[in-house]
C-alpha cells in the first residue's frame, strides 16, 4: 500500500468554496428526459426506489382495503371469488416483492453511502439498471392485473394449483415472470450495497466503527445473494413446466411438488428476515438518536444481526409442517425457529437499556420505534407458538397466521420504516416534517393496526380459514371481522394523514439544518438535502459516533480530484486508503438494457424462442453500456504506459 501521510497544510475557505463549485460541476445531476433516464446519482436512484415502493405499498393497501370491505359482513357480494383470489395474491405479491424488499434497497442506496461517508455508491449504473427492472416489473404486474391475467394462486404460487394442469391461462406465468424482474433488481442492488460498504467507507471507519444501519444492510444484502436464487429457480422451473412441458413438479413423471415448496421457502423464510433486518438497523438508529447516547451493546447488536441472518436460512421447513414431513426432521426446524428468538431478544434488551439510560425525546420517529416494541413482540410471541408443530397444525391456514405475519412484518418492518422516513425526511427534502400531523398519523396507524389484526388471532382460533372470499353467518365471526374492517379504515386514514403531512411539510415546513435531530452519524454532517457530491470537505472518522465524539481537529481528506467523478477506495476491514477510482458517468444504456430485458421476459411468456431472439437487443445495449467513452478514460493511465511505473502499487495485497 502507498503511504498516505498526514501533513500540516494551509487550507483556506476560498479554496474549499472553489473546490465545491468544481465538484458540483463534475457530479452534476443529469437534466432533460435523457438525463432523467441516465441518472446514476445514488440519492436520486434511492429516492426513486423508495417512492416507487411506497406507491406500490399504497396500491397493495387499496387491495387490502377491498378485501376488508368484502369480509366486513358474511355472504358479502362486493367481490366475487375469482377476483378475490387475484386480489389477495396481488396484495401479498405486491407487499413482499414490490414494497418491502425494494424500499429497504432504496433506503440502503440512499443512506449507506452517506452513513459511511462516501461520495457515491459503487457500480451506480448497475443500481440504475436494478431500479428500471423493478419499475418495469411492477408496472407489468399491474397491467396484467387490469388485463385479467393477474396471478391468483397466492403469493407463493404453489404447485400443483399453479402448475399446467390446474392453472390454465397466463396468470401463474405473470407471477413467475414478475419474480424474475424483482429478483434481478434485488440481486444487482445487493451487489451494489455490499461493494459500497466494503470498499467505499471513509478512512477511519473500520468495520468496528460502522453504524448499525449499514451493518444491517450488509447482512441483509448477503442474505439476498444466497436466498433469491432459490426463488428464481423455483419460478423458472414453474414456468418451464407450464410453457415447454418439463416435469419438475409433475408427480406422474417423477417430479415433486414438495421440491417447489423447498425451493420457495428456502427463499421465502430468509425473505422475512431480509425485510426485518434492515428495520432492526433502523430501530438502532432511531433509538440511539432519540436517546441522545451511543447505543448500548454495539457488538451484541452486530452479532445478533449476523446470527439472525445465518439462522434465517435454517428455518424454512417450518412453513411446510403441514406438508407431511417426518416429525423428527421437522423438530430441527422447530428448535431453530425458537432459538432465533435469542438474537432478537438480545437486540430488544440492548434498545431498552439505551432508552433506559438515555435522555429520551418523544419525537414522532421514536414513537414509531416504540410502536415496534408493542407490536413486534406480540408477533414474535405468536411466532414461537407456531414454531411448534402441534400448534402449527392447529392454526395452519387460519387467520391466526394472518395475524402473526402482519404483527411481525408491519410491527417489525413497516413501523420502523415509517419512523425512519419521518426521521430522514429533512435529509430528503430540506424541510422538517410537521409534528402534529405526524402524531395523528402515528396514533391512527397504531390503533388502526391493532384493531385490524388483533381480532384475527381470535378469528383464527375460532377456525376462520385464510383466503376465503366470504363466510356464512352464525359462525361467530361477524363482530371480529367488522372490527377488523373498522381498523383497516383507520389505517387508511393514517396513511392519508401521513401523505397530507408530507405535502404540507414539503411546501411550508420549517427549513431543516444539517443536523436537526442532533444525531451522530455522517449523513447529518452534510447539508439537507446533500449536494450531489455528498461531502466536502470530508474528515477522517475517529469513533462510532463521529458527530458526537470525534475531536474537532480530525484530518481533512485531500487529494481526491475534483475535476472528475473521483472516489477513494479503502480497504475492507480497516478502511485504510487504497486507491483512487473513477466513478462511472451517467449513461442511458442501463435503462435501455432493462427495457429490452423486460420485453424479452414478457415475450417469453408467449413463446420460448423469445429467450433466444429477445436476448440479442440487451446484449447490444450491454456492450454499449460497457464500451469506454473518450471522456471516461483515465487521463492518469492513458496511454497505458503511464501506468506502468505504478504497477507495483496496484498489484499484490494492500
Amino acid at each position, binding site marked *: 500500500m502507498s503511504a498516505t501521510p498526514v501533513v500540516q497544510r494551509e487550507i483556506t475557505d476560498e479554496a474549499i468554496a472553489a473546490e465545491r463549485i468544481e465538484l458540483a460541476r463534475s457530479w452534476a445531476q443529469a437534466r432533460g428526459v435523457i438525463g432523467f433516464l441516465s441518472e446514476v446519482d445514488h440519492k436520486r436512484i434511492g429516492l426513486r426506489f423508495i417512492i416507487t415502493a411506497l406507491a406500490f405499498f399504497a396500491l397493495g393497501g387499496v387491495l387490502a382495503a377491498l378485501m376488508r370491505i368484502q369480509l366486513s359482513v358474511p355472504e358479502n357480494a362486493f367481490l366475487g371469488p375469482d377476483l378475490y383470489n387475484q386480489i389477495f395474491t396481488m396484495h401479498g405479491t405486491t407487499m413482499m416483492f414490490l414494497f418491502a424488499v425494494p424500499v429497504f434497497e432504496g433506503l440502503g442506496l440512499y443512506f449507506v453511502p452517506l452513513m459511511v461517508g462516501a461520495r457515491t455508491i459503487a457500480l451506480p449504473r448497475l443500481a440504475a439498471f436494478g431500479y428500471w427492472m423493478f419499475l418495469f416489473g411492477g408496472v407489468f404486474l399491474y397491467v396484467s392485473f387490469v388485463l385479467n391475467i393477474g396471478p391468483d394462486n397466492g403469493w407463493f404460487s404453489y404447485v400443483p394449483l399453479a402448475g399446467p394442469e390446474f392453472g390454465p391461462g397466463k396468470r401463474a406465468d405473470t407471477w413467475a415472470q414478475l419474480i424474475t424482474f424483482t429478483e434481478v433488481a434485488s440481486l444487482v442492488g445487493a451487489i451494489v450495497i455490499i461493494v459500497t460498504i466494503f470498499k467505499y467507507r471513509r478512512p477511519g471507519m473500520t468495520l468496528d466503527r460502522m453504524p448499525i444501519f449499514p451493518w444491517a444492510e450488509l447482512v441483509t444484502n448477503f442474505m439476498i445473494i444466497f436466498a433469491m436464487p432459490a426463488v428464481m429457480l423455483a419460478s423458472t422451473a414453474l414456468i418451464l413446466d407450464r410453457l415447454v412441458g418439463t416435469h419438475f413438479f409433475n408427480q406422474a413423471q417423477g417430479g415433486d411438488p414438495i421440491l417447489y415448496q423447498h425451493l420457495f421457502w428456502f427463499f421465502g423464510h430468509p425473505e422475512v428476515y431480509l425485510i426485518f433486518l434492515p428495520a432492526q438497523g433502523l430501530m438502532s438508529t432511531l433509538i440511539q438518536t432519540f436517546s441522545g447516547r451511543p447505543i448500548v451493546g454495539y457488538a451484541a447488536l452486530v*452479532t445478533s444481526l*449476523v446470527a439472525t441472518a445465518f439462522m434465517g436460512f435454517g428455518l424454512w421447513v417450518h412453513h411446510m409442517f403441514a406438508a407431511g414431513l417426518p416429525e423428527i426432521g421437522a423438530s430441527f426446524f422447530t428448535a431453530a425457529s425458537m432459538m432465533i428468538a435469542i438474537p432478537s431478544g438480545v437486540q430488544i434488551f440492548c434498545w431498552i437499556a439505551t432508552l433506559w439510560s438515555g435522555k429520551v425525546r418523544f419525537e414522532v420517529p421514536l414513537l414509531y420505534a416504540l410502536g415496534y416494541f408493542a407490536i413486534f413482540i406480540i408477533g414474535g410471541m405468536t411466532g414461537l407458538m407456531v414454531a411448534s408443530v402441534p400448534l402449527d397444525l392447529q392454526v395452519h391456514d387460519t387467520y391466526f397466521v394472518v395475524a402473526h405475519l402482519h404483527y411481525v412484518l408491519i410491527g417489525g418492518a413497516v413501523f420502523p420504516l415509517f419512523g425512519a422516513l419521518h426521521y430522514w425526511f429533512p435529509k430528503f427534502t430540506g424541510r422538517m416534517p410537521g409534528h402534529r400531523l405526524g402524531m395523528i398519523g402515528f396514533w391512527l396507524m397504531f390503533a388502526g393496526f391493532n384493531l385490524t389484526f388483533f381480532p384475527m388471532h381470535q378469528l383464527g382460533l375460532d377456525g376462520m380459514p385464510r383466503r376465503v372470499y366470504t363466510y356464512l353467518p352464525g359462525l361467530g365471526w361477524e363482530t371480529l371481522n367488522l372490527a377488523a374492517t373498522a381498523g383497516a379504515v383507520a389505517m387508511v386514514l393514517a396513511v392519508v394523514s401521513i401523505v397530507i403531512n408530507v405535502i404540507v411539510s414539503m411546501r411550508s415546513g420549517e427549513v431543516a439544518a444539517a443536523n436537526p435531530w442532533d444525531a451522530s452519524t455522517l449523513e447529518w454532517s452534510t447539508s439537507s438535502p446533500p449536494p450531489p457530491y455528498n461531502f466536502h470537505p470530508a474528515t477522517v472518522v475517529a469513533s462510532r459516533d463521529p458527530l458526537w465524539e470525534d475531536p474537532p481537529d480530525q484530518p481533512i481528506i485531500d487529494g481526491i480530484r475534483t475535476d472528475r467523478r473521483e472516489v477513494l477506495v479503502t480497504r475492507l476491514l*480497516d478502511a485504510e486508503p487504497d486507491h483512487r477510482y473513477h466513478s462511472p458517468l451517467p449513461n442511458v444504456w442501463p435503462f435501455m438494457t432493462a427495457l429490452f430485458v423486460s420485453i424479452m421476459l414478457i415475450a417469453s411468456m408467449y413463446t420460448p424462442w423469445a429467450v433466444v431472439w429477445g436476448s440479442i437487443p440487451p446484449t447490444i445495449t450491454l456492450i454499449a453500456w460497457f464500451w469506454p467513452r473518450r471522456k471516461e478514460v483515465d487521463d492518469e493511465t492513458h496511454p497505458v504506459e503511464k501506468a506502468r511505473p505504478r504497477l507495483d502499487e496496484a498489484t499484490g495485497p494492500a
Partner: protein
Amino acid sequence: MLYAGIIGTPLLWLAAVQTGYVLAYQACDARSTAWVIVPTLAAIAMVTGLTLIAWRGHRRAQGGRLPLPILGVLAVGMASLMVIVMAASAIAPMMLNPCD
C-alpha cells in the same frame, strides 16, 4: 481462527440441520432415533470445538494482534449461540419415536 466462529459454526449448524432432516427418513426405516441423535451429538461436539478455537482467537485479538475487536466478539457470540441452538435441536429427537 475467528472465521471458525463467524462462518464455521453457522455453516456447521446448517449442515447438521440438513443431515438431521435427511436422516430422519433413515431413522424411521431403521426404527432407531440413534440415526439422528448420534450425528447431532457429533455436530455439537464439533461446534463446541470451533467455539473454543474462536475463543482463543478472540483472546489473541484482545491482545492487539488483530485490528478489529468486533470480529472477536462476533466469532465468540456466534459460536456460543450455535452451541445453544444445536443443543436445542438435540432435545426433540431424544423424545420422539423414530417414525413420528
